[in-house]
């Protein structure tokens, strides 16, 4: 007779589940946030010895202290997100939004620097937008061409393009700084033309980017869902073989889609130069090009969902920063921990959305106080 090793049955069964109703998925996500808040609460008691509820209150009020800044930050992140989703939908992992925006911004600033006072302002602004878009498109299309014709890995390629862009910007933002000492500032305050090339304000400085982001969002929604181009993009992402079979020119689609990404990045770059920052430096994009990836995934590459995910992410970041200020913490480390924990829980809960977890017979037996099967087996042996 075989001597069987008694192995305990597992407590849970995990199985794939790809038709969870939407509301249930939302409920799971809400639950994840709740869990995150509890963990953060415990952390705050341990680390900074503060009442967690006071902290959360500060986060919420903090995020809404300056509504316009909040909306602007959302709009900017949204633009980055919108720039990456068409490519992502095509399974082209564009990690280079930062570089694409930077290089566009640099070109717009170059226009400001060298043409200020020499051409009428309207012409200057048009030139800024055009060169910015052109530069971003070039930056986005180079990896696309290599991918389309030589099958190079786009993730590494776009990432490297970021570093090149940063290097170029670092060089010029220093050498163009007019000796004012402020690295990156081009037409320094007080000089004759220092406002040349500034975009006009609608209401206030932030309204324009917010409107643009909303427009681009609406455009992308329609583009991806209802247009022939969007259909082709999705099909290439789904199966290159099938796309070829139905007669789609895959190379063309890859390049066209990255041109679109480039255009959006170019608009963003021009907005940084002409409206938001009036300068260029290597940290202008922060980590937005990467946060955008998170935002895009959370939204499942859906531009409408992305309105919510960008709001959520920006809200968290702003709120957590405010906590550092209000509670006079020495650094932003604590707020980073809070944001990290919440992100972790949100992303982690996707597991529970994609998979179904069911208690096994053994767990049911244990819970109802019955003898488990493996215990029986053990007795037998």
């Amino acid at each position, binding site marked *: 007779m075989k001597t069987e090793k008694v192995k305990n049955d597992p407590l849970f069964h995990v199985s794939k589940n790809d038709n969870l109703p939407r509301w249930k998925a939302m409920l799971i996500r809400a639950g994840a946030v709740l869990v995150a808040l509890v963990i953060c609460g415990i952390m705050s008691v341990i680390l900074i010895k503060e009442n967690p509820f006071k902290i959360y209150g500060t986060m919420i009020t903090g995020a809404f202290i300056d509504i316009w800044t909040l909306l602007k930050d959302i709009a900017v992140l949204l633009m980055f997100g919108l720039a990456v989703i068409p490519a992502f939908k095509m399974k082209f992992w564009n990690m280079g939004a930062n570089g694409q925006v930077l290089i566009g911004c640099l070109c717009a600033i170059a226009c400001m620097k060298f043409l200020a006072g020499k051409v009428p302002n309207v012409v200057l602004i048009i030139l800024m937008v055009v060169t910015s878009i052109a530069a971003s498109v070039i930056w986005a299309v180079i990896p696309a061409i290599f991918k389309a014709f030589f099958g190079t890995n786009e993730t590494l390629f776009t990432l490297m393009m970021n570093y090149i862009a940063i290097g170029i910007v670092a060089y010029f933002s220093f050498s163009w700084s007019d000796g004012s000492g402020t690295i990156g500032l081009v037409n320094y305050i007080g000089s004759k033309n220092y406002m040349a090339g500034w975009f006009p304000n609608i209401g206030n400085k932030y309204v324009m980017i917010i409107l643009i982001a909303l427009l681009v969002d609406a455009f992308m929604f329609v583009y991806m869902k*209802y247009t022939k181009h969007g259909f082709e993009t*999705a099909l290439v992402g789904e199966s290159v073989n099938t796309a070829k079979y139905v007669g*789609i020119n895959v190379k063309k689609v890859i390049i066209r889609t990255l041109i679109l990404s480039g255009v959006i990045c170019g608009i963003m770059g021009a907005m940084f130069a002409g409206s938001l920052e009036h300068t260029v430096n290597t940290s202008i994009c922060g980590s937005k090009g990467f946060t955008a990836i998170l935002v895009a995934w959370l939204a499942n590459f859906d531009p409408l969902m992305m309105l919510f995910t960008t709001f959520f992410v920006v809200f968290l970041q702003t709120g957590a920063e405010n906590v550092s200020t209000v509670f006079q913490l020495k650094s932003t480390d604590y707020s980073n921990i809070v944001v990290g924990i919440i992100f972790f829980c949100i992303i982690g809960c996707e597991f529970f959305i994609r998979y179904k977890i069911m208690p096994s017979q053994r767990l049911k037996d244990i819970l109802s106080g019955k003898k488990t099967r493996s215990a029986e087996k053990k007795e037998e042996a």
Partner: protein
Amino acid sequence: MSKEIALELKNITKSFGRVVANRNVNLTVYKNEILSLLGENGSGKTTLMNMISGIYFPDEGEIFVDGKPAVISSPKDAFGYGIGMIHQHFKLVDTFTAAQNIILGIKNEKYNIKLVNSRVREIAEKYGFDIDPKKKIHEMSVSEKQTVEIIKVLYRGANILILDEPTAVLTPQEIEKLFAILRKMRDDGKSIIIITHKLNEVMEISDRVSILRKGEYIGTVNTCETTEKQLTEMMVGKQIELKIDRVKVESTKPLLEIRDLVIRSDDGSKAIKNVSFYIRGGEILGVAGITGCGQKELCEAIAGLRKVESGFIMHKGESIVGMPPKLIIEKGISMSFIPEDRLGMGLAPSFSITDNMMLKTYGEGKTPFVNRQAAREKAQALIEKLEIATPSTETPVRRLSGGNVQKVLVGREIDANPNVIVTAYPVRGLDINSAYAIYDILNEQKSKGVGILFVGEDLDVMLALCDKILVLCHGEVMGIVHAAKVTKDQLGLMMTGAVNLTELQKEKNFGIAKDSNLTETEWLNAANEQNGGAENEN
């Protein structure tokens, strides 16, 4: 003889959202037997087997192995119980050798390739497999890959083997060989569950047959006490009559004329050598040949997906050689090649049925927008016509059962109103009811004057359905015969190259239509152009 129960399923239920794939299914498998699992497309066969092999976990019900309750929550658990499954879609690492694939993932297995190789050879010898453990997967044919999958399972000591539609991708000779192996395994005490839609195979190989209908268990019969007719009735739930007609249609001028065609395969060798034939409107031309005789390359070349080395493909007198696939589709030439991996070419798995319906037509219309409403209506019509089992038109194709996936593909091709249909293995994996529905559709198209090139495997079907049959062997035409005047044996001899009718009829201008769309001088001009072009290139 008292039989020992190897595996027993009791009241198994499994649903996917609102779709109940299995409802209260009971199944018993004995040792020393081959059990066939029969059911229409989408009746839940694959789902049920996936639960035994640890891919899915049942919502309700129990599984007993050797009389003891078993909890199978992963394929590894299944191996622990001596259960192994050979899936329809192989799961092998292309760049690894057979032996490497076989031991992949076994815990505590010392990587001693010599030992593995000799054990693999031992298993192969015992059951009569042909295998070279050192051969890389990407160099293998489909049937060799299947062999690796089977040995992989045996290597792990499986006593219960599940094969999901293993014969769908094999040639008749390969099927014979597989069956011989299965019988040997049965006599060795193993239990085998085999899924197939071909009733003659069910009758030939199995000891008992269990039938599922719409997710429910209908019953089990002993193979020796049943008939194909009874099985069909149990499967469909009503009496049906199955026959293939050869509709008589007044055939028209040649629609597609192919002359002296040479095509290279992926590895650079000539896949099609100087092939000439033509298809008229209102005619079904069958293409018979063993796997790898060049049918795939021929289909791809006609659809513009493969480069033509030399020769002509004339559509209504106009050359389509070198045209982009999109233009060829617009000319009304539809190609549906059902590959071994069904989802590979022609469908987008995560797209809805609606979106898949418009894969070839989304570009129609002048607006930049796709017309999803029209596609949805077409999808709805197709679902009704071919009885596709799906909750809605918006269900992703990936969630459909194998056969239903295929109905979407074939249905779409025919829906596009083509004037030439090139279709390869359109009924691969379809239940017989659906297969006959496809034959009817092809006949319907033929009556409308469409020219059809039908690449098939089942010679009986080809003899009944086609007007003429072209036989290929190693890329060469062995003959084009009238289906009514030829026998299965003759075809078989031609397929293996033993008989070559073209030799006998050489002077009769083989494969060249007398009423060609082009005059002799036009053909000559075309030939000169091609040669001239080639010279200029050099």
